[in-house]
């Protein structure tokens, strides 16, 4: 007998799914703000070769980019308590997301900073701006504008990656899906709809961030 698809038992739990999706978006929002902030700091240290922070950020970037997010999450949630650093599920999830995004955005933003044409900096120097003023007014904003699409993609990757936070019982979207399928025994249908929801969220985040980039970072509609 052919399998009968039935999505109704999933739709019944739509409230749980939406709550989970909302929580995933909230985690992502906090992760994005602090992750990009951390990445900006890292990029400054790397681009300006501020000893010893440039080295530290270099090690940090390589360590994070060459290990899986899931292992980073487990290390934070299960490993750190051994050092007396104990935290809740969502705190651990956010921390892992910030640390992960921070590493990638350090490299992304650094590339943007280093792509600043020399003439821009010389023009600002000749106007007697200080190093700090040049960075703030002449380097950073065009650099962020240039790499904003790459940062947007990275935020989406982190959002999608946060699905594994269900493994430490962070009550995000995948956690909700796991719960629902354990109740209705409709695993395929549940994960199918959940996947669709993630896809819609990825589109939404891309739209939002591109709008934001257009209006806040670039400062005008091109």
């Amino acid at each position, binding site marked *: 007998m052919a399998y009968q698809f039935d999505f109704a038992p999933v739709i019944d739990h739509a409230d749980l799914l939406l709550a989970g999706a909302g929580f995933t978006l909230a985690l992502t929002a906090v992760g994005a703000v602090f992750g990009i902030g951390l990445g900006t700091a890292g990029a400054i240290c790397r681009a300006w070769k501020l000893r010893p922070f440039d080295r530290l950020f270099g090690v940090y970037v390589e*360590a994070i980019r060459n290990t*899986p997010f*899931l292992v980073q999450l487990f290390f934070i949630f299960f490993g750190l308590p051994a050092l007396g650093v104990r935290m809740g599920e969502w705190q651990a999830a956010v921390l892992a997301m910030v640390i992960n995004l921070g590493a990638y955005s350090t490299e992304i933003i650094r590339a943007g900073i280093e792509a600043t044409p020399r003439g821009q900096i010389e023009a600002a120097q000749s106007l007697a701006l200080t190093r700090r003023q040049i960075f703030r007014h002449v380097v950073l904003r065009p650099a962020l504008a240039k790499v904003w699409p790459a940062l947007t993609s990275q935020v989406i990757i982190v959002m999608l990656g946060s699905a594994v936070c269900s493994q430490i019982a962070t009550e995000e979207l995948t956690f909700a899906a796991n719960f629902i399928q354990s109740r209705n025994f409709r695993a395929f249908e549940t*994960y199918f709809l959940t*996947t669709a929801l*993630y896809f819609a969220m990825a589109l939404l985040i891309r739209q939002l961030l591109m709008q934001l980039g257009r209006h806040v970072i670039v400062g005008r509609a091109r």
Partner: protein
Amino acid sequence: MLVQFTTWDIVRNLLDAAKWTLALSLIAFVLGGLVGLAILFARISKHRALQAATKAYIEVFQGTPLLMQLFIVFFGLSLAGIDVSPWLAAAAGLTLFTSAYLAEIWRGCVDAVPKGQWEASATLALSYTQQMRHVILPQALRIAIAPTVGFSVQVVKGTAVTSIIGFTELTKTGSMLANATFEPFVVFGLVAAGYFALCYPLSLYAKRLERKFHVAR
């Protein structure tokens, strides 16, 4: 049962598990590369429907979590009446994931070949297939090597997610050891070191290739 684990026991078990991580990575990368090549050709073909279908394929895999892809493959295959082991689901899921990303990376490389190359080869009366075979692909291949090696790091890291559907590789073994030894800090530190040992050389190699390529241009 109460077993005393020495650090060496932990390391030995993890090394053993790392073999499975490595095996899965290789399989996913090779099979994903083959499927990705097929997707690539469909994506850059002149056939509208094929273009649209493969574009959607790529967008779906890049716009959804790897974990969901694994779940859907796992439960989808069992609905289809196939008796799925975690090993099969992991290999199949990761292969599809890899194929979508590689196809998109390679498409970018084909696009990066200057328009003039198409026009020049067209004026020589080469057919589309001949243009591809003799002019475009050889150049695209050169551009593609560095990002392809770079993506292999994502594949290795992606294998960690298969632990969630029950495939016993490095991360899964780490979780079990952490529970058994009550030393999660040490165990997950070692697990991370294991992934780093696999990935970092690939990252370095990709970076070196990229530099070499930029100099060569």
